[in-house]
């Protein structure tokens, strides 16, 4: 009897919600045109995933073309008290672009124009839906490029990069997204349009650009971005160092860092995953090794020669079996293609993989890798490692079968233990993927009640009703004593 009452109640709620959503759909269709609004279940299904193991379905999806439209969408959603989440290409790995609270998903795919390029001031003004690599393509004729280069740069968008403060292999020397953003145009949760930062020089006042970049879409929607462009280096040398023991490879990274050599990139790929990558891409990696380091040095010719020689020497001192230098651009591009597509190749090893993202002090790399392999073993996994070794940004990869519920539980438990371990070493929860809905319950490992209190006040001052990207970054569980394993089973994992 009671169950039946509840069911009637929930049907009542659902039908009320359906009415709200259908009114909103009507208004949005008249604002944007029906071709820019999706509300059929089969269409919405496509937007319930991103690159993470999480899953959440929006109630409708819209494709604005202008900032003004974004502002009006946000106002309409507020009128109906429906949450809003922004989305770029959906390549994110922490569930940042998933509609955890349902509601309206604003997909920026059609706001994909490069609005202005100022070669002399080295700035470009772009819409959020512009693909990362397309910025470089538009300016490379002038010897310039956009430095942050996430592995997904062929498909991920600059809006998503800004929201997550994305990194990439070459951020070791050049910094992450936030270091390359001069100004933003924002749509606030109440629909107000505001510009922060300054195209030229530092704007007086608080560094709002610095606050909004990396705020994971929880404070504002970004509708226009002024990016800083970098000059292509005069010379580049790419080295591939091959090791018979993974400890030697990580010791090499420690030595390179300690000697004050800053390569443009310093990536590690373990031998086990490398075999698969090589089968898939034939990038020129060795088929049999314990690990390789993919190192790049850039700058003036004189600096590059000296740095390459220094790197070579460190590698050999640390027992590298072989150090190869890419002979030309073709060889170099192939190696990077292998690195950037490595995660895709792993699909050959297991039905699914869970790419983790933790950071540790670089001096602790050797012990960390050994320990992480041990954690994997404990849960019955072989953990792969393809990561940004130079800045201590680990990406352990847990390969598992999502159809096996025990494996799912174990994958999540292993992941959590690995991240806890990173924090114990003095590291952080995430180096470049973001907290999103993947790690929000782990935030208490790093932050105190006072830290949360202030972050919450900052959140609430901009996004008072949590109407923008709800359920992200902040832990949802009450009290911070015991961190619970996420209640959610990884049934939607892939």
């Amino acid at each position, binding site marked *: 009897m009671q169950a039946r009452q509840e069911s009637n109640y929930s049907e009542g709620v659902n039908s009320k919600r359906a009415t709200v959503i259908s009114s909103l759909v009507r208004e949005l269709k008249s604002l944007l045109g029906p071709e820019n609004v999706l509300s059929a279940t089969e269409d919405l299904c496509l937007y319930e995933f991103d690159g993470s193991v999480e899953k959440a379905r929006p109630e409708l999806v819209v494709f604005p073309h202008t900032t003004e439209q974004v502002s009006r969408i946000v106002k309409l959603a507020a009128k109906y008290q429906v949450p809003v989440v922004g989305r770029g290409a959906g390549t994110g790995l922490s569930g940042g672009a998933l509609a955890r609270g349902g509601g309206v998903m604003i997909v920026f795919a059609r706001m994909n124009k490069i609005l202005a390029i100022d070669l002399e001031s080295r700035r470009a003004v772009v819409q959020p839906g512009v693909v990362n690599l397309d910025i470089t393509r538009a300016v490379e004729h002038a010897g310039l490029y956009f430095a942050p280069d996430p592995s997904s740069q062929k498909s991920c968008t600059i809006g998503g990069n800004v929201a997550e403060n994305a990194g990439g292999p070459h951020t070791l020397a050049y910094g992450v997204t936030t270091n390359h953003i001069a100004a933003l145009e924002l749509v606030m949760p109440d629909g107000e349009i505001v510009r922060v930062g300054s195209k030229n020089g530092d704007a007086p006042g608080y*560094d709002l650009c610095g606050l909004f970049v990396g705020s994971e879409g929880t404070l504002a929607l970004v509708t226009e971005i002024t990016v800083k462009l970098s000059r292509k280096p005069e010379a580049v040398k790419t080295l591939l160092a091959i090791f018979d023991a993974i400890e030697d490879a990580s010791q090499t990274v420690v030595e390179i860092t300690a000697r004050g050599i800053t390569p443009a990139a310093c990536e590690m790929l373990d031998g086990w995953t490398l075999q698969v990558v090589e089968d898939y891409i034939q990038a020129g990696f060795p088929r049999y090794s314990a690990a390789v380091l993919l190192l790049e040095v850039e700058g003036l010719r004189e600096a590059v020669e000296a740095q390459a020689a220094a790197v070579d020497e460190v590698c050999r001192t640390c027992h590298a079996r072989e150090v190869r230098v890419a002979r030309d651009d073709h060889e170099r591009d192939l190696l990077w293609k292998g690195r950037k597509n490595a995660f895709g190749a792993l699909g050959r090893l297991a039905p699914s993989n869970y790419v983790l993202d933790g950071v540790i002090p670089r001096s602790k790399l050797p012990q960390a890798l050994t320990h992480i392999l041990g954690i994997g073993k404990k849960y019955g996994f072989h953990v792969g490692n393809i990561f940004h070794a130079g800045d201590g940004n680990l990406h352990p990869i847990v390969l598992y079968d999502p159809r096996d519920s025990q494996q799912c539980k174990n994958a999540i438990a292993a992941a959590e233990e690995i991240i806890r371990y990173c924090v114990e070493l003095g590291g952080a929860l995430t180096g470049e993927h973001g907290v999103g809905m993947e790690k929000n319950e782990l935030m208490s490992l790093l932050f105190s009640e006072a830290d949360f209190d202030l972050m919450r006040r900052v959140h*609430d001052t901009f996004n008072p009703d949590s109407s923008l990207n709800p359920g992200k970054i902040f832990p949802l569980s009450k009290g911070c004593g015991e961190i619970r394993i996420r209640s959610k089973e990884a049934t939607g994992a892939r």
Partner: protein
Amino acid sequence: MVSSEEELAEYVVDGIVPGAIVKPHSAEEAREVMRFAAADKLALIPVGSRSKCDIGMPPARYDIALDMTGMREIAHYDAGDLTLSVDAGTPLRQLEHVLAESQQFLPLAVPCFESSTVGGAIASGIDSVLRQQYGTARDFLIGAEFVDGKGNICKSGGRVVKNVTGYDLHKLLIGSLGTIGVITRLNFRTFPLAAAYGGHVASFESAERALAFRNAVEASGLPVANLEFLSPRTAAITKAILEKEDRPVPGCVEGSSWAVYASFEGNERVVERVAQDVERLARDAGARQDEPLDAGSDAQLGGALREAFEWLRWAAPAVALFRITMPRILPQSLAALSRPEDSLRRALLVRAGGVVYFSVMGDSEDEETIAAFETMAKDIFALAAEKQGQATLLHAPLGLKKRLSVWGLARGDFSLMKKVKQAFDPDGIFAPRRYVGGL
């Protein structure tokens, strides 16, 4: 806690003397002071060596000076990881020595270097001369601990070089003048010292030629650490400073021509190569004279120019010192600044990254001078806005601060700044009215 009139007078900010000085020795002590201030609704200003307290507007209230110089511990330094965690009151000079033992440094080459604390350098937001090569503090500050306006010890960021966990609240502290929190500890990434250093200085008959050279160096993509463009008067002051300190004066820094100074670092071959390229560019631009600087003279000249903010603001009995950023430094923009229509003297310094320091000097803070400063400030604020740049007054006589805001024209994002201030300091404990827009 009990202080004499003389001691209190040393903590003056824009003519306002605090009622008490408190010197905490830990974040917990700082927190207790904050809680005391919050409970009694007292206004508080955290200070370091007090060398840049004249930046900003006069505080509406100022009851407690929170002297952070009692906190000077290096909490953590992992040279192998190039990361550092240091108390806010640590003097930059002390830090420099510690880092140098591991052949490293922090690229915070700010004015008043001898006395400055690391917390003050961050809170004042003052430029480091090394920004061209190493970026600004936001590029290497990786975390912070601070006491917020509610009297809680908070932190953001961490001690690793790459981190996107939580909001980047520590970036908001840079240049915040203590208006949102008391910085107690700062985490940085450190940098290796270069193997070799060198410099080059050239003099030019006209601003146009000097500027053409400066812009050519900037456009060349050569890695320069300093790139400073000096008007004749700035060169004359630089010369006088070097002479006063018994240091060698490069022939090109003489006071009747425009001078451009570049410094560079790297390995020996890099320094040699950049020196050659810069020299060639100088001759192409028609330099009157040019000379290479060895590491020693480079450090002397670089050191004198690092202090430019300090000597420009005290170069005359009345000084209005502007900081202007413009997209491109064009001769027309400079001409607009240096047009001498009155009896005031002008000194101009253009830094790398298009940062212009423009000092206007008068002989007394009389009504006529202040009125002239005011007119000029209004023109400069308007000019910067027109060029999509920014302009503020880094230093101004009190009389001028009473007439206009040193922060320049109101910006469209002020509503958001106000929200930041409210979130951090809901009761308005920190230095009320000193900041942008009266925050």
